């Protein structure tokens, strides 16, 4: 049993223990600062020989840009492909890439996230305007902390992420990373191929 003094302190501490969040641009600022520092050099022979250099571009003006594009912005980032997780009972994919004129219907893609403590999981990406409230992309809890949703994704190259409890953005753990320097975030990449006919 806490005595009165201890109870007071406990009350104070509880208030101070409330979660705090940094501002949304914090990660970007930190990574920008970190990238300016000398890269660590515990490298394999290959990396030592082939470390990519960073080039920055400053757009002159929007009008001139189209005419003068030669340089491009890059940093040691990773943009990556993942093959879509497939519903085992209905395999999707693999077809040879059809000629552009061919009609390509959206494909069903299953997204899975293991998040035992989540109350809500949504899929967001360039196929649904990055909208965490989009009705067709709300995952269902299947038990055991497994959340999934099978949704329609157009054929092509996409970026996506999971949003947990409307607040925490999580890249798909099994998908390769697509680091985005513009926002200093990490997304996942997905290439959906047309179904074989």
């Amino acid at each position: 049993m806490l005595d009165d003094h201890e109870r007071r302190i406990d009350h104070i501490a509880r208030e101070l223990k409330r979660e705090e969040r940094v501002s949304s641009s914090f990660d970007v600022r930190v990574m920008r600062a970190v990238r300016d520092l000398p890269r660590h050099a515990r490298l394999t022979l290959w990396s030592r020989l082939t470390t990519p250099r960073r080039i920055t571009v400053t757009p002159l003006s929007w009008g001139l840009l189209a005419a003068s594009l030669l340089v491009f912005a890059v940093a040691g980032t990773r943009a990556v492909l993942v093959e879509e997780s497939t519903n085992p009972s209905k395999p999707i994919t693999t077809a040879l890439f059809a000629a552009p004129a061919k009609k390509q219907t959206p494909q069903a893609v299953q997204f899975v996230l293991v998040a035992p403590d989540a109350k809500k999981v949504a899929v967001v990406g360039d196929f649904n305007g990055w909208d965490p409230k989009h009705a067709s992309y709300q995952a269902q809890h299947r038990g055991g902390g497994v959340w999934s949703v099978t949704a329609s994704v157009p054929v092509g190259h996409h970026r996506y992420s999971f949003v947990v409890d409307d607040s925490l953005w999580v890249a798909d753990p099994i998908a390769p990373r697509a680091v985005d320097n513009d926002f200093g975030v990490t997304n996942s990449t997905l290439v959906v191929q047309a179904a074989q006919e």
Partner: protein
Amino acid sequence: MEGSSDAVIVDRVLRGDVEAFRVLVERYRDRYARYALHMLGNREDAEEALQDAFTRAYRSLDRCEDPERFAAWLFRILVNRCRTLGARRGRRGRTFVVDDVALMAASVEHPSDRGAWREEIERALQQLRPEQREAFLLKYVEDLGYDEMSRLTGVGVSALKMRVMRACDRLRELLSEVHSA
């Protein structure tokens, strides 16, 4: 990569994968923002100290002896950064700014109630001597044991206990008009 342990990520960074460091930033920035905020009293200073801590951690990552305990190592760097920043600010003269965002967030839950209480606490905290505030936060907000606090701060356990005790006394004094819930 996100599910990987700190040691795995540290190793990647040391091999030249700068971007992997982001995972560590994302993992710990909110957790340690809290300490910096209460220690320094305003969000701007807190984020400066936190950002500083991360860049220093990156810079001296190869000197992190136990990458599995990266979090504790990072926290020690942050505690030091807060001391330095706090001292610098102290020399400029005491300014205490109540964090508007925290206030707003606090007052949303219990309008008029919580906001005022939170403000009282923050104000009282800032009136503590820095070393007492530090000890109090480490003990009661970060829930560290005295041995761990001693390792973190370089101060002996009995001195720490004394600081915590004095902090509690002073806080109770300052906050005596406020009724406990």
